[in-house]
């Protein structure tokens, strides 16, 4: 019984967060810009694709949505407001958000249209680009919090937020978070030139699920960023959920705004950025954090 209530609460939190996210995102889209994951998709009419794979195409949005819903479980929205405090929460989040990539690849191939197949290739290349620096951005925080549990990470920042101690890690998280959520400079898989990729070949319920899943990814990335670097629900006077919401959407607005300052990068440029700059920066961050811990600097 308790499990069902938790599941409904988590789903409601995801849908609410995704709705607010798409509302916020609308502020950052101009007609001349690439829309990226907010590319137009027809929510009312299902689309008939003659050559589509009958199993893989519908599986895509379901898998992606399931991935975001599973990741939502370990996000602490307030003191006690968490689906389940897993002992390996941070690692769990990295793993289950990968299901969104899997869903996009499944639907991209399954639609069997040149544009979406191209989107499938770009999605996979982007996964290769972000996954290593993203892991390195988590590692610094985990080293200082001495735990993988999201609740323990929030507790460790009761005195001082990790953004103060690890500014480099925070910058790295901003960039890789944008890559992970396919937002502004890294929107190659949803580019206009391939007509929105997977979104262009979705309609009806699948378009709705894609909307929730893609907004949910950005919401999750911002929420996890707030947990990792901004102290999560910690804050004076006001209740925890208010601080968590405020930090999440402030971080999201910062990411979207910064992302729009740069021209969109192609997948090849993304890979070069990842392996030539972000990964060394991540390793440097881990080294610096290790030095701080050895010096006895703790929040």
């Amino acid at each position: 019984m308790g499990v069902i209530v938790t599941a409904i609460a988590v789903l409601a939190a995801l849908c609410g967060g995704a709705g607010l996210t798409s509302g916020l995102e609308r502020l950052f889209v101009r007609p001349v810009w690439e829309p990226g994951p907010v590319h137009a998709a027809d929510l009312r009419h299902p689309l008939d694709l003659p050559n589509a794979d009958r199993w893989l195409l519908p599986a895509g949005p379901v898998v992606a949505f399931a991935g975001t819903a599973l990741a939502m479980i370990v996000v602490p929205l307030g003191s006690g407001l968490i689906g389940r405090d897993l002992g390996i929460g941070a690692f769990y989040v990295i793993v289950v958000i990968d299901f969104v990539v899997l869903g996009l690849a499944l639907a991209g191939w399954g639609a069997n249209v040149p544009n979406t197949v191209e989107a499938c290739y770009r999605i996979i290349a982007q996964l290769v680009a972000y996954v290593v620096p993203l892991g390195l951005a988590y590692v610094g925080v985990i080293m200082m919090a001495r735990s993988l549990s999201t609740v323990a990470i929030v507790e460790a920042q009761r005195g001082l937020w990790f953004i103060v101690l690890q500014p480099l890690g925070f910058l790295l998280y901003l960039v890789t978070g944008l890559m992970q959520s396919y937002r502004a400079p890294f929107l190659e898989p949803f580019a206009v030139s391939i007509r929105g990729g997977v979104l262009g070949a979705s309609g009806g319920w699948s378009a709705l699920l894609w909307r929730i899943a893609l907004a949910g990814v950005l919401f999750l990335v911002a929420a996890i960023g707030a947990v990792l670097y901004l102290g999560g629900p910690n804050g004076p006077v006001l209740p925890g959920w208010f601080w968590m919401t405020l930090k999440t959407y402030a971080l999201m607005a910062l990411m979207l705004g910064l992302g729009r300052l740069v021209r969109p990068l192609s997948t090849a440029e993304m890979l070069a950025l990842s392996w030539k700059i972000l990964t060394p920066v991540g390793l440097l961050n881990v080294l610096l954090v290790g030095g701080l811990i050895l010096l006895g600097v703790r929040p």
Partner: protein
Amino acid sequence: MTAAFEILAFAVSGFVAIAGALGMTTTMSMFRSGIFLMASFIGVAGLFILLAADLIGLLQIMMYIGGMLVMILFMVLVMHDPGGAMMAGMDMAPIERWFSAGLEPRKPRQGGHGDHGDHAVQHTDDDGHGSHEGHGGMDMSMVTPVRPAAAWLAIVVGTVLIGMLIWRPAWPVVGTLPDPDSAARVGHLLMEKYMIAFEGAGFLILIGIFGAVLLARPSTYPDDPSRSAKVAVDRKPEAIADDRIAPLAGRDRDHRAGDDGL
């Protein structure tokens, strides 16, 4: 965790693991084969989590979602018929038909485009040799002629292994529950007792990366045919929308002129 839930979870995970592996080896579509293998790994990861090794289970899922997706990219690159469309119409064993359900059989086109065969990535590869349409007359089957023998061998191996399991079922089973915080225990072991093995594995990965990059680099010999086969980036990428596959059905999705490139 109640007993009924555990049995149910074991049944589902075991079924996914075995059905995924079977589907991997019998389906006609290369892409599906990779997806089935991924499903099999996720099923095994479910079994790991049931066995209280949740860290290993999650590690397995993370490794193989990324790994299998990249492997699928390579399969699409090197296979004649990654979508299985040309073979879907051939006669298949029942199990193959079952795992290939939903694949649209399609004859190779006049223009030589198979299923997804025409992409910017492959273009430079196809320059100068027979390209994909050159293989029209050859045996397209994915399996070798020794397949029946292999199937019998696999059945024998499986029967012998399971027979041995049933014949000697008395393992010295210990009833204690493992520590729920397995991440901390594994971390301490990795950094203390097994540090040499851990660092050795890291070094092995580094050497593996170097080796893979060295092997995959285009050759520097002037008369090597692979010299021209730069696959990474086309200098002037082929417009994707120019593929001669039938346009999308549906309203206002068929204006395909004038949007090559950003």
